[in-house]
């Protein structure tokens, strides 16, 4: 299962690209798979693409869940398979 973390869009760029804030780090992503994204919207990010726009309520719920997860697991999440 792959965690899908909401990220905030901080800047729209040409060619369906956007800058998002991932835990304080800015990253360029593609908006080619979703419509109607504006600055300050939250999207679900997967391998460099925004795959879903979250409405404010969903984003809040999901962020609260990830904050809880962060707290319960700390930052050392490595689970080496091999």
């Amino acid at each position, binding site marked *: 299962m*792959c965690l*899908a*973390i909401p990220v905030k869009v901080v800047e729209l760029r040409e060619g369906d690209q956007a800058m998002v804030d991932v835990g304080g780090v800015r990253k360029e992503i593609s908006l080619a798979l*979703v419509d109607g994204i504006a600055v300050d919207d939250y999207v679900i990010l*997967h391998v460099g693409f925004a795959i879903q726009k979250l409405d404010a309520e969903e984003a809040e719920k999901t962020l609260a869940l990830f904050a809880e997860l962060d707290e319960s*697991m700390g*930052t050392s999440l490595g*689970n080496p*398979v*091999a």
Partner: protein
Amino acid sequence: MIAEGKLQLDVVWDGKQLTGVSIRSSRPLAACRILEGKPVAEVVRLVPLLFSVCGRAQGAAAAAACEAARGVAPNDAVRVARERAIAGECLQEYTWRLLIDLPALLGEAARPGELADLRRRIGSARDELRWHDVAGAAEELLERAVYEMSPRVWLGLRPAAFEKWVARGEAPMQRMLARLRQLRLGGDFGLLPWLEVADLGALSARLEAEPDFVQLPNWQGEPAETGALARQSGHPLLVREVGQYGATVAARLLARLLELAQLPEQLRQPLASGIRCVSPRPGSGIAAVETARGTLLHQVTLTGDHVAHYRIVAPTEWNFHPQGAFVRGLLGCAAKTETETRAAAGLLAHALDPCVAYEVSVARA
């Protein structure tokens, strides 16, 4: 901040072939522990939010496992809606692999625009009529962008006609299939069978008894590959393909093409028993759901109305097992250059489709 993690795929190349393969994962497999202690209804609501890349499948697996644990069953309308949502999600994932990822790996142009419209339709499908619309739009897209004929007609091709289709080589998919047949991989690894209810009971017992089973799943003691190749392994075209070329990347692409071509019809007529679940004992439930990447297992134990234990076994753990299909497929694979080595690892990783980003590194032996 928590991250989705990634797979680091380390390959050793001696100038002629791949002599070592190892996998490091930073995926937070323990994330589902956050569900423990919460009420069942909340868990069923949270799972698709937490794991939203394949959220429909995750949500259906969570609901089915919890229902089994409580000894209740969904009505037919709910069951059908879940099967449709899972088929729709599969359709999105397969088209992503074929129209975005695979062209990029082969140096061809990705086509995200084709996918965006389909995703929009799937995202807003709520009733039978809308799903029929999605099926029609999907058939049109697949005919134009993938099969160059109706997917239904393509599914009916006999071997000789199929070879003609591959040899025609005009469409990106045909070129890819022909190229990927040349990438010979190692073999000798098992396929995960379709898990029946009795199998789920046995797996549930193992999940409870073996704490590392979620990280290192195995079938009868051996690593096993899950996904389209395993599910379609009995299809005559695939039997012939594997017999002739081996379990190549092309065989896995063909398996995906065989499933993808059937998905529009599954949106119209959902599977009767795609989601399987069982309760090995009161308060415990396990469910298996077929996703694009393979079989997804959710297992839950309840205390009253609250979740006491929650475990998820994702397809990535089967396919990227330290002795699994990725590792065994690459060991011994011939490669003349470092670029070829990197490409082989990237193509097999793509064929086995981990649910997170991956990075390939090559070291010289």
